[in-house]
């Protein structure tokens, strides 16, 4: 307790500092006066009495200082003094302050912004309780296509009943636009994003409902009363946040459902946007056939289980599923076993984030380099300034300032700059974030999690400390120990080469970093060029307007009527002025469609049970290929007669034709089918390849079927109810054109909402979004690096020239020609540049490999890019040196020699 009282006493002194000083002063004065009186009484004169008293007393100033130090606040007073002094000095040179703070603000701001994105998307855990226990559970057919993953009903039943590592498991149905349900019963019908789940899904996520209840096992039973859960947004929108919504009925896809619960406001299902309804998957165990992998799985691990244990457990259970449930008609069990189904479990966060993490780390690295360059610039500025204060610092040292004290003061000034730079940097970051989020590739996961929150602020603090120390220590190390005698009049002969070392080193670093960034940008630019020049398989996507229509069972129960309605729509659309062609299909290129199946060819033998490769299936209308600009290589297109008469025909893509039958012509007439019990269908045409997976992946092998088929996939009749219409017109993308389209569609059927209204160009640019985003970001970083580096280089050379004015004057006076001076200055610059380029080259060779997964058509060590960028940077750097060199040449020797 004593120390507490002592601290209280010390604190009191801190608050009453002035009073303390006054008291001590008065005390000591009294003492001196009393002693003086005593001396006077013993007969001394006034002058000697005072001197004697003072002598006996000692050094009053020193004693006062010692008394103050005893109280322990010296450090605080020193810092306060340094801060005041630093602010004063900054106010006196506003130019320097503005440049330094701005440079830092840009560098720090950019780094904070990219860190916010990195934190929100990659680092932050998912917002469910104990998210590390959550895993995405999928099955992969290794022998067919290792990139596919999904879950089937049989996996769900078996895993749920027999797992040793899962606390709970659920499956949910993929939620592309086709899953959008028609909700009627309100003022107008609406298409709503819905999610089908088994009851386990919501309990795995462990978010309790805000109102009502979540699904229980009974809701999942086939035949149980139909229920629905609302998301908060939908509840607010449609029910005005009225709690009496619980128990009400809504009509979803023609079926009445009772609302049993509302989810909390901040609930998000993985990364799904705009989710409205959650509906129970009523899977019937008795009607379950194998291999319907239309779902995704999610589970929560037991407290003690690891991911690898869970994987092993799933591997154990997969053969059990094959034993427990029957295969669908047309598919043999042997076939499924040969497909080598294997577990594919990932931490849930990884499933959500995907592989965008690498991209973000690359950007973080790039912007980190920009920050380093900015710091180097500020360090250079500080070095120059501190050099100008040599006189003052030497004086301080001579008066008794310790090295530590001077260092503390210099650091304090740097800290002020660092702090100001940080504060403005935060402002820059907030603005940059808005820009980043707007620019971000669509499909950047967890975008709503990005923001300036606590980890970001902690990072800001850390970065501030780091950068301040980085550029603050450099002048300290160089100048704090100045003990040289104060030069009289400050006359110097001009700076020796020694003095330039620190600044030259900094500029070398800047040049090197700028080179690395420029090379990375160059590689990205070339990648982008390669990608945009690849033939996507279709023509002029900006002219193609697309939208999606679903004709539900409730509206048109007769499958055979569906194509008629679609054809009517197609004809109405073709009648719109300006439209050159119309078609429709189950999917358009790059829209994310993933309907695959094994395709058998009649003239090929397959080893017993060995499955043929998976092919991409599409259901198209006559005229679809013509509309998209997909060339017809052999044979003919579909006709409406083929469709209505259910003629068993199909078209295939050129790569599939060549794979099986050497030339497209030979493929005509061959027969293919899906399962082993379907009708054979004849190939009547071969069309060009389409790069459906994006420009950087090979074209898929496609099989095109008519939109109405008999005995397809073991069903008597298949009608393609969900289709995307494609309309070619120069007006594509305009709102007025879409209005015309809507009128056309509604003149056929007024109940059909149009969804997913995009031009094909949207899908095209979206497929390259990752590349273009990286390109823009790296380009910005490289541009900033180039600017800062060039300015830094120019500054150093210009300063060096100004310091050497006298020397240059002498040289010219004794006979140096203009070109000698020029080569002198340029030579110094070239030396720095060459070393910087060399280091930068080595750095680039080492670091571009991190970029290689983002590159396409260009190697990470592409010599052309490297050479081009090096030459470019060398030219710019030389130009930066040239300007001060010209000024040096214009030095008048007489003026220079007189100049001090």
């Amino acid at each position, binding site marked *: 307790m004593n120390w507490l009282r002592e601290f209280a006493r010390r604190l009191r002194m801190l608050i009453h500092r002035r009073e303390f000083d006054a*008291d001590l002063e008065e005390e000591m004065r009294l003492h001196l006066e009393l002693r003086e009186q005593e001396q006077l009484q013993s007969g001394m004169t006034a002058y000697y009495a005072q001197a004697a008293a003072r002598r006996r007393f*000692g050094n009053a100033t020193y004693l006062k200082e010692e008394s103050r130090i005893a109280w322990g606040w010296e450090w605080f007073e020193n810092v306060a003094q340094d801060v005041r002094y630093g602010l004063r000095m900054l106010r006196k040179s506003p130019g320097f302050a503005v440049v330094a703070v701005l440079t830092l603000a840009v560098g720090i701001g950019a780094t904070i912004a990219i860190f916010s994105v990195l934190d929100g998307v990659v680092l932050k855990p998912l917002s469910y309780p104990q998210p590390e226990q959550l895993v995405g559970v999928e099955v992969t057919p290794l022998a067919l296509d290792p990139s596919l993953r999904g879950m089937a009903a049989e996996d769900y039943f078996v895993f749920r009943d027999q797992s040793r590592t899962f606390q709970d498991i659920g499956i949910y149905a993929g939620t592309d636009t086709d899953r959008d349900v028609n909700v009627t019963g309100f003022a107008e019908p609406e298409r709503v994003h819905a999610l089908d789940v088994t009851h386990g899904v919501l309990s795995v996520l462990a978010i309790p409902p805000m109102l009502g209840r979540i699904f229980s096992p009974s809701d999942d039973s086939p035949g149980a009363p139909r229920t629905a859960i609302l998301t908060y947004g939908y509840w607010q929108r449609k029910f005005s946040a009225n709690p009496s919504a619980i128990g009400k009925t809504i009509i979803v896809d023609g079926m009445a459902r009772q609302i049993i619960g509302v989810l909390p406001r901040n609930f998000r299902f993985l990364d799904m946007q705009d989710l409205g309804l959650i509906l129970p998957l009523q899977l019937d165990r008795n009607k379950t056939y194998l291999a319907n992998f239309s779902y995704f799985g999610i589970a929560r691990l037991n407290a003690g289980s690891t991911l690898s244990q869970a994987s092993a457990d799933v591997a154990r259970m997969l053969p059990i599923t094959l034993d427990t449930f029957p295969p669908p008609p047309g598919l043999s069990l042997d076939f499924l076993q040969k497909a080598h189904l294997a577990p594919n479990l990932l931490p849930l966060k990884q499933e959500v984030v995907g592989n965008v993490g690498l991209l973000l780390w690359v950007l973080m690295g790039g912007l980190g380099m920009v920050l380093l360059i900015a710091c180097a610039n500020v360090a250079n500025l500080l070095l120059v300034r501190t050099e100008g204060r040599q006189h003052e610092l030497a004086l301080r040292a001579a008066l008794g300032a310790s090295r530590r004290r001077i260092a503390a003061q210099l650091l304090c000034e740097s800290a002020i700059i660092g702090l100001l730079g940080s504060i403005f940097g935060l402002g820059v970051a907030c603005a940059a974030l808005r820009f980043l989020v707007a620019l971000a590739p669509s499909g950047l996961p967890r975008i709503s999690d990005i923001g300036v929150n606590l980890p970001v602020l902690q990072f800001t603090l850390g970065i501030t400390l780091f950068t301040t120390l980085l550029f603050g220590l450099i002048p300290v190390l160089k100048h704090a120990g100045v003990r040289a005698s104060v030069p009289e009049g400050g006359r110097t002969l001009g700076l020796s080469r020694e003095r330039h070392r620190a600044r030259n080193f900094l500029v070398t670093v800047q040049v090197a970093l700028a080179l690395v960034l420029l090379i990375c940008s160059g590689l990205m630019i070339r990648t982008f060029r390669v990608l945009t020049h690849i033939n996507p398989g279709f023509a002029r996507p900006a002219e193609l307007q697309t939208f999606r229509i679903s004709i539900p069972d409730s509206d048109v129960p007769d499958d055979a009527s569906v194509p008629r309605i679609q054809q009517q729509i197609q004809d109405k659309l073709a009648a719109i002025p300006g439209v050159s062609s119309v078609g429709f299909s189950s999917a358009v290129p790059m829209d994310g469609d993933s309907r695959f199946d094994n395709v058998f060819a009649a003239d090929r033998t397959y080893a017993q049970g060995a499955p043929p490769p998976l092919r991409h299936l599409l259901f198209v209308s006559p005229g679809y290929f013509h509309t998209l600009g997909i060339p017809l290589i052999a044979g003919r297109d579909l006709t409406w007669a083929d469709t209505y008469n259910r003629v068993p025909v199909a078209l295939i893509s050129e790569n599939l034709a060549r794979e099986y039958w050497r030339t497209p012509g030979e493929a005509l007439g061959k027969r293919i089918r899906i399962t082993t019990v379907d009708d054979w269908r004849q190939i009547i045409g071969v069309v060009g390849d389409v790069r459906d997976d994006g420009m950087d992946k090979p074209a898929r092998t496609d099989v095109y079927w008519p939109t109405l088929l008999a005995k397809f996939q073991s069903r008597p009749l298949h009608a393609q109810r969900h289709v995307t219409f494609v309309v070619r017109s120069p007006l594509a993308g305009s709102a007025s054109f879409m209005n015309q389209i809507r009128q056309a569609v509604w003149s056929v059927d007024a109940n059909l909402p149009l969804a997913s209204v995009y031009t094909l160009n949207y899908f095209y640019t979206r497929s390259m979004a990752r590349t273009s985003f990286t390109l823009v970001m790296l380009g910005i970083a490289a541009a900033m690096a180039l600017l800062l580096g060039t300015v830094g280089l120019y500054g150093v050379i210009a300063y060096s020239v100004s310091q050497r004015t006298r020397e240059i004057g002498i040289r010219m006076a004794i006979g140096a020609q203009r070109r000698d001076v020029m080569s002198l200055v340029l030579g110094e610059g070239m030396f720095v540049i060459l070393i910087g380029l060399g280091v930068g080259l080595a750095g680039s060779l080492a670091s571009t490999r991190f970029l290689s997964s983002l590159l396409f058509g260009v190697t990470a060590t592409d010599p052309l890019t490297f050479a081009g960028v090096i030459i470019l940077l060398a030219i710019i750097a030389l130009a930066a040196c040239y300007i001060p060199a010209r000024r040096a040449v214009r030095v008048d020797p007489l003026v220079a020699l007189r100049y001090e």
Partner: protein
Amino acid sequence: MHGYEVANSIQRISDDILEVEEGSLYPALQRMLIKGWVTAKWGTTAGNRRARYYQLTAAGRKQLDVEMSQFERVIGAITRVIEAV
């Protein structure tokens, strides 16, 4: 006593043998103030001047005893060493 009186009494009691640099009393008094071994109060001297009077506290007395015994131990040791010589 106030600072001047302390200096004088040290000189007087030690018969002029101990002559301290008088000013160094003040930092010493400050240190004792921090530690709580003395308290200080402003008062008036005989000559009607304002002076700060210091007083030993209970904790101070305890500390004095500690220092005293420490000091006596050291002196005793030195004496013994010299006598042994």
